[in-house]
């Protein structure tokens, strides 16, 4: 337990180190979620259209 708290304290730089990693996780994670959702939504729309027009390519 002492080990973990010691590690989390980052030698007194905890707020800077963890904020930096937090920002990275937020921005890159946000990009990943947005891109994933956009890809899925656009595939669904295309599938429906192709089904309706009977063109499957």
């Amino acid at each position: 337990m002492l080990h973990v708290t010691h590690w989390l304290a980052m030698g007194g730089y905890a707020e800077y180190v963890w904020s930096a990693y937090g920002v990275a996780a937020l921005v890159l994670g946000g990009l990943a979620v947005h891109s994933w959702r956009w890809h899925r939504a656009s595939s669904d729309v295309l599938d429906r259209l192709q089904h309706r027009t009977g063109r499957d390519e």
Partner: protein
Amino acid sequence: MPMLTRLANPARFMRASSTALPWLGALATGVIAVGLVWGLVFAPPDYQQGESVRIMFVHVPSAWMAMSAYLFIAVASGVALVWRHPLADIAAQAAAPVGAGFTAVCLASGSLWGRPMWGAWWVWDARLTSVLVLFFLYLGYIALVNAFDDRTRGARAGSLLALVGVVNLPIIKFSVDWWNTLHQPASVLRLGAPTIALSMLLPLLVMALGFMLLFGWLVLLRMRAALNERKAHALRLYGQLAAGEPRLPMAPPVADVAARAALR
């Protein structure tokens, strides 16, 4: 190069990218996980900067990706302007928000590192300012591409901006040598051997590889989404024409009235 020209066909690109996508995503996640544990737990603290040096493992790879993504956009824009290849524009536009994201991470993590080490969140020196300019170039490119009703004109204008902005890349890279700055000089990508210890260099390179894979995954996802949207748009037009609906684009009624007035 022959492989690139083969993949330049949109239908072939969709097939190849759908196979590559899950592998790339899994690989990116795995490599970043290894890099995080290595950098945050096993890498040693710096003898001068202590534990704050761990910010480097997210700051430096995102800086490298910020510049590489811009280079990618510039090359794709060049290809789009010269060969008018449809996938090149789509690739450049897919990479822009990703590059802007990496630049934002680089600026924020750098600020969080500067505060404890330099005593300032921000200084207007050459390195920091030129990276801020890079961030605005990304935003300008995205805004310009979307500013036109005609998609090809927007893409053309964006490509030109991307190519002009390339002059900023060597300025960023050599800013630490050309001007006095608080920012430390290059310790990895320099003439001669790296000056950074191997125990820090290795996790740094692992994180850089992870970010590169993440970039590839994100760009492929966004390219596929954009291609899906264009195909759906074309299908809708096709459906309207087949159903005998009015042709697009329709003459605007204003022009019609003006024409009649002129004839009278």
